[in-house]
């Protein structure tokens, strides 16, 4: 479990997030929904170690080997593939500088799981947006992360590709028993993927609502219960805002 304890982040005199407290439960999908500028991506960057909080701390539970240092995987809004590496090499990049003695084999394995085994020799310029994002997901998963961070990973894709990639992600979630922290502004995406939805609002961003989504998986977006959840999250997100 990851505990975010009273995290505040300010740039000069401008606070982006204030006094944020949150627990990310293991083997669950925690989705943070918020409007643009509410600081949700900042929190994810703090979790990834790309930014330091102004105050507060993040506590990582040690794993079964007693190692506190988290093994993180991250998928950004853009695929961020290295253009000089082919698909397989981009996935192997996920092993870090030490590499892995079976890195090529494991990369091929994960590429098969994301349906790109026949594209392993392609370069990023030869891929579509959806394919490139799947390579980015494969790169994050190849190191078997204890926490997978996703920062609006499908927001730049068309609706059909987005929906299909969401389904693929949930298949991978089940297959690898992942713990995911997912940031999005798409309410439907949040309800489709989450075990818990956290609504962050305001400037500085603060957690306003938490919802436990108990819908069975796989979730149908036409299911009336799904629609109800969408309405509830939307109301929580817009409640108190001027029209």
């Amino acid at each position, binding site marked *: 479990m990851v505990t975010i304890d009273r995290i505040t982040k300010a740039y000069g005199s401008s606070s982006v997030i204030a006094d944020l407290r949150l627990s990310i439960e293991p083997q669950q999908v925690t989705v943070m929904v918020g409007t643009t500028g509410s600081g949700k991506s900042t929190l994810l960057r703090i979790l*990834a*170690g*790309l930014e330091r909080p102004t105050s507060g701390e993040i506590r990582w539970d040690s794993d079964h080997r007693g190692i506190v240092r988290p093994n*993180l995987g*991250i998928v*950004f809004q*853009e695929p*961020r593939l*290295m*253009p*000089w*590496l*082919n698909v397989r090499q981009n996935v192997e*990049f*996920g*092993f*870090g*500088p*030490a590499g892995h003695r079976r890195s090529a084999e494991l990369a091929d394995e994960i590429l*098969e*799981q*994301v*349906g790109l*085994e026949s*594209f392993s020799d*392609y*370069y*990023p*310029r*030869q*891929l*579509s*947006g*959806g*394919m490139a994002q799947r390579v980015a997901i494969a790169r994050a998963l190849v*190191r078997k992360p204890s926490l997978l961070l996703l920062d609006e990973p499908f927001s730049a*894709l*068309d609706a*059909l*590709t987005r929906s*299909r990639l969401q*389904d*693929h992600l949930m*298949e*991978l979630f089940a*297959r690898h028993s992942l713990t995911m922290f997912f940031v999005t502004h798409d309410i439907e995406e949040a309800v489709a993927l989450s075990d818990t939805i956290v609504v962050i609002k305001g400037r500085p961003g603060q957690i306003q609502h938490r919802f436990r989504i108990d819908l069975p998986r796989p979730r149908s977006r036409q299911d009336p219960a799904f629609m109800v959840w969408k309405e509830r999250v939307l109301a929580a997100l817009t409640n108190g805002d001027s029209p």
Partner: protein
Amino acid sequence: MPTSSLLRSAEQVGSSEPGPQTEALRASVKRRPRWNALGVVLPAIALIGWEVASRLGWLDRTITSSPTEILAEIYHLLWTGQIWVHLWATFVRVFSGFALGSAVAIVLGVVTGLSQIAYRLLNPTIHALRSVPSYAWVPLFILWFGIFETSKILLIALGAFFPLYLALVSSIRSVDRKLVEVALVNGFKGWNLARKIFLPASLPAIFVGLRQSLGLAWMFVVAAEFMGATHGLGFLLIDGQTTGRPATLITSVLLFALCGKATDGCLAWVSERALHWQDAYHPNSPEARSD
């Protein structure tokens, strides 16, 4: 249905396919002509015009000569074997200077590009030195290193240093932050970060810098060979001038042009292969021609 099959079936829909542009791009690379015949037209017309003007006596033969006289001079140099002596002397100087200047540029460029302290410490001085005209160094280099090979190679190295250094520093300092973040999250730091991100990301600029450096090495070798050389294309140039033989002089200029073009062509060939991954626009690609 297994996951991979599900994903594969999804792959067949919409924008997930690599699309025809991928194949078109590959085809365009294959179809790209190796030799652009258009580039030969202008020099050919100029050569014919020159020969005709020379034979008709329109040109002063004391200050210029005809293309056939130049060919005869090249033949003479080849026949006596002198051409190889001069070419070898110049090539050794150019490549020694180019290698030395590039090596120093890569080391200093990487250090200055990656370290803010080194950037603040070294960059203003290096920029100030860059402003010194190349010929201003000649007397100083003769004074410091004599008139033999050391001063010549160091002068060429100085010329080759600046373009590569500037290209390297500027490209390292503008590497995409987003790619660096991916590397940091995956545990790359220090030397590994430089090797796996900064250097490959700077490779296009490095090749541009290398080509400019090589071009300047060929320019600086002329200045270097003016410093008391007994062999080399620069010596041939001076020799032609002092003995009043325009054919020798023009032959030397021609050989400089051919050698410069040939070595730049080699570097361009290496560059094209090393940067095959770039998503660059090719004017002769099918997409560009379709309009």
